[in-house]
């Protein structure tokens, strides 16, 4: 054939990846700087924010739909990340911050995106007055808006852990759960507590447009646990070297598709292309599960002994394949292990095969952290803070991003379920250790940053 540069096998492989293995572009996220929206008057600030978001992201949905059709590749989410609100709202009181949140919500609605991230503050070293106001406003902001996502960075390898902020977050998460009790405490699903947060993450709820980012940018998050699962199944009982190669090759193809979509979207929106986040992000759909990949590698159930090793292999191979496929890899990049958004994780949690302790261990080698885990509503704020502290310590010491997104489901206890519907999924309430961490959290102050030498 003169013109046809691809074999039928290759063409069918791409089509099968999309049609039966749920390959998709998980998100196109437009990052927008709001630094030029600053004003003395909250009202002017809000007007500037609305106008800018609406102006920059106006065509996002249309462009995204066109690209999806032309490449035959589903694009699941279109989202917006903005400059952390704590950086643009210096003059705002807590009630003004609520209006900023509502403005972001309206702007997201106007351009028809389901989430807008950036109701955020970075407090790893300490809190400014505006940071404290933003913390205070988070529960109400999450309860009063549908689309706004909040995140806070409470620690970093360079700065250590701000234990005062971590203690405060325990109470804020509880409050957000109570204010949204009628909707399964969904407020908490829109709130992420980070250590070593990244500034170009396109995935919600932790997306924000960092201070080091350009005016506007287009970031893309790819996905495809189903494609990796099929490739591993096809490899049969191959040894780990072969398995790693199979995963690398698959991640390479997925990432190349992501890069093409990202660059095309950027050019059609007239914005610079930022990064591809080459994460394996599961959805509750059967076959679109990271847990099933780990089980295919050789576990009866995710959560049993060997889960951490299998995840380490998967995560590293995904990164290696993806890094070769794109010049600009960024964001969180790796395998996500959310509980409620992964059919295999849900099943393992239901049977008690996976516990919050094992999940914590697995986060030491995965791309993010304790994600979308529903715990009893009566869990004390200090215990939630202590879970955050543990997770942040793993991130701080291992120089990686970790995050906590817990849902202390108001009025529910072990044996109950929460159901958020859609991509957020459903989850059984899992038990947490009931012995108190109150004295640890009450100490206050900061845990110093760790040594960067003597690393054993």
């Amino acid at each position, binding site marked *: *054939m*003169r*013109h*046809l*540069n*691809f074999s*039928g*096998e*290759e*063409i*069918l*492989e*791409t*089509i099968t990846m999309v049609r039966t293995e749920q390959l998709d572009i998980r998100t196109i996220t437009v990052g927008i700087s709001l630094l030029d929206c600053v004003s003395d008057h909250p009202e002017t600030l809000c007007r500037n924010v609305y106008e800018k978001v609406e*102006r*920059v992201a*106006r*065509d996002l949905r*249309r*462009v995204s739909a*066109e690209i999806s*059709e*032309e*490449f*035959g*590749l589903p694009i699941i989410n279109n989202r917006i990340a903005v400059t952390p609100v704590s950086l643009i709202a210096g003059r705002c009181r807590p009630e003004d911050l609520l209006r900023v949140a509502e403005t972001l919500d309206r702007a997201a609605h106007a351009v028809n995106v389901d989430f807008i991230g950036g109701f955020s503050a970075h407090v790893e070293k300490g809190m400014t007055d505006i940071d404290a106001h933003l913390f205070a406003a988070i529960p109400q902001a999450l309860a009063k808006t549908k689309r706004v996502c909040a995140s806070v960075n409470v620690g970093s390898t360079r700065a250590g852990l701000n234990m005062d902020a971590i203690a405060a977050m325990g109470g804020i998460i509880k409050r957000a759960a109570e204010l949204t009790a009628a909707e399964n405490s969904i407020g908490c699903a829109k709130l992420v507590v980070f250590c070593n947060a990244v500034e170009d993450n396109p995935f919600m709820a932790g997306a924000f447009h960092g201070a080091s980012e350009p005016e*506007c940018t287009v970031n893309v998050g790819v996905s495809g646990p189903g494609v990796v699962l099929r490739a591993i199944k096809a490899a049969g009982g191959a040894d780990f070297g072969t398995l790693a190669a199979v995963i690398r090759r698959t991640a390479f*193809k997925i990432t*190349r*598709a992501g*890069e*093409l979509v990202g660059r*095309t979207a950027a*050019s*059609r*929106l*007239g*914005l610079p292309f930022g990064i591809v986040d080459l994460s394996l992000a599961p959805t509750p759909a059967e076959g679109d599960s990271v847990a099933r990949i780990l089980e295919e590698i050789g576990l009866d159930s995710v959560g049993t002994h060997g889960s951490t090793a299998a995840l380490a292999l998967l995560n590293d191979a995904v990164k290696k394949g993806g890094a070769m496929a794109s010049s600009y890899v960024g964001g969180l990049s790796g395998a996500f292990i959310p509980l409620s958004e992964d059919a295999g994780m849900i099943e393992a949690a239901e049977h008690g095969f996976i516990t919050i302790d094992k999940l914590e261990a697995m986060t030491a080698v995965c791309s993010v952290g304790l994600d979308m885990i529903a715990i009893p509503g009566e869990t004390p704020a200090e215990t939630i803070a202590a879970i955050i502290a543990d997770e942040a310590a793993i991130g701080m010491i291992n120089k990686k991003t970790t995050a906590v997104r817990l849902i202390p489901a108001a009025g529910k206890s072990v044996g109950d379920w929460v159901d958020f519907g859609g991509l957020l999924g459903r989850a059984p309430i899992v038990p947490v250790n009931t012995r108190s961490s109150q004295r640890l959290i009450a100490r206050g102050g900061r845990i110093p940053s760790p040594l960067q030498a003597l690393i054993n």
Partner: protein
Amino acid sequence: MPKQTKEAGTPQTGRAIITIIGSDRVGIIAGISNVLAEANVNILDISQSVIREFFTMIMMVDLAGSAISFHALSERLTRKGQELSVRVEIQREEIFKAMHRV
């Protein structure tokens, strides 16, 4: 600030791959070719084979000169596919280049 690119909805350039999957029968090539001719889309190449138990026909077409938008072309092909009881997909060539060529 975001510049509007006009060609977004109406591709004037580029090539696409049309994949037809289903059972072999009389009139498939004729039916699909008709849709393409009406849209002034030139067929550069056709191959057919049985891949993974499916009868598969693959066409490379040139979108330059197309009289209608990608969206409209895609809809017409899908409709014709339903008439012929086969699945028809049209995708820009770039996606295959990205995934299968380094």
